[in-house]
């Protein structure tokens, strides 16, 4: 089967297709969340009776932090496609990802603060990992602010796309803030990330939660891009002729 991907670069073709996908992604997000949390809360304690209970924050902290960085990379990807091919749908995708990315960044900082209070005794420290993650949140907010500050949609999209490219520098900074080549030079309070040191049940519950968050991200980003299409294309014939749009 050959799919013509360019067909779906037109909002009129993309809009109905993603509308059908949203319930599936929502369904997967809910089922996997329930499964992952059940695994995380009820299938690990016997294995880890000596471990302090606050480790359970890992099941949402790590997936949220991963999503915050992954969504930024995807957002920049769409922005770059927009800059190269000048397709309006790519810019809409980038704009739809930003708030969800910012939301996950906030959640990773929030959950990290409560975890930090239990294990380090402080909600916040100007540690490289936390500081760089906070800056990622500011970059997301900057992207959204710049995009909404310019009235001309085309110019707003292009300016925000270039800003998102500048912000891309945050991803390696966040990554290397704890994974520096020489551990002796690391001054980070935040522990290093190594999947080998984690107990298998915890790792799997965490990975299930990551897929759940990922499915959730798909669902809400598709919901938002449909809203953006409704907003931006309201004067077009195809949207006005679309049956089912009528409220």
């Amino acid at each position: 089967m050959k799919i013509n991907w360019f067909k779906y670069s037109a909002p009129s073709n993309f809009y109905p297709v993603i509308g059908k996908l949203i319930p599936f992604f929502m369904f997967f997000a809910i089922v996997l969340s329930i499964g992952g949390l059940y695994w995380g809360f009820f299938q690990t304690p016997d294995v880890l009776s000596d471990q302090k209970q606050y480790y359970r924050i890992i099941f949402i902290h790590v997936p949220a932090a991963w999503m915050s960085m992954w969504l930024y990379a995807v957002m920049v990807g769409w922005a770059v496609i927009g800059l190269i091919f000048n397709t309006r749908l790519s810019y809409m995708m980038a704009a739809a990802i930003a708030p969800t990315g910012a939301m996950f960044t906030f959640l990773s900082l929030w959950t990290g603060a409560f975890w930090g209070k239990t294990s380090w005794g402080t909600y916040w420290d100007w540690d490289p990992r936390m500081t760089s993650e906070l800056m990622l949140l500011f970059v997301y907010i900057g992207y959204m602010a710049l995009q909404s500050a310019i009235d001309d949609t085309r110019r707003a999209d292009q300016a925000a796309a270039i800003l998102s490219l500048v912000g891309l520098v945050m991803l390696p900074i966040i990554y290397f803030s704890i994974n520096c080549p020489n551990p002796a030079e690391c001054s980070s309070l935040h522990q290093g990330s190594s999947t080998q040191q984690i107990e298998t049940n915890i790792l799997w519950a965490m990975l299930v939660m990551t897929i759940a968050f990922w499915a959730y991200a798909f669902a809400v980003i598709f919901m938002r891009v449909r809203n953006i299409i409704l907003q931006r294309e309201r004067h077009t014939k195809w949207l006005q002729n679309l049956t089912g749009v009528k409220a």
Partner: protein
Amino acid sequence: MTFSEFVNMGGYGYFIWMCFGMVALVMFAEPLFLRLQRKALKRKLDRVIRMNKRENQSE
């Protein structure tokens, strides 16, 4: 394990439920907000369609 033991989480209940509570709150609120936004946008689109119809009739 009793229910209160589960909620207590070995003394770390407050921290754990603050985290999970915030995640649940935000992840319920975001799709809900998007649904409400969609309804408002549909109303706006309906107005545009009605306006166009009226213009066509008056011509």
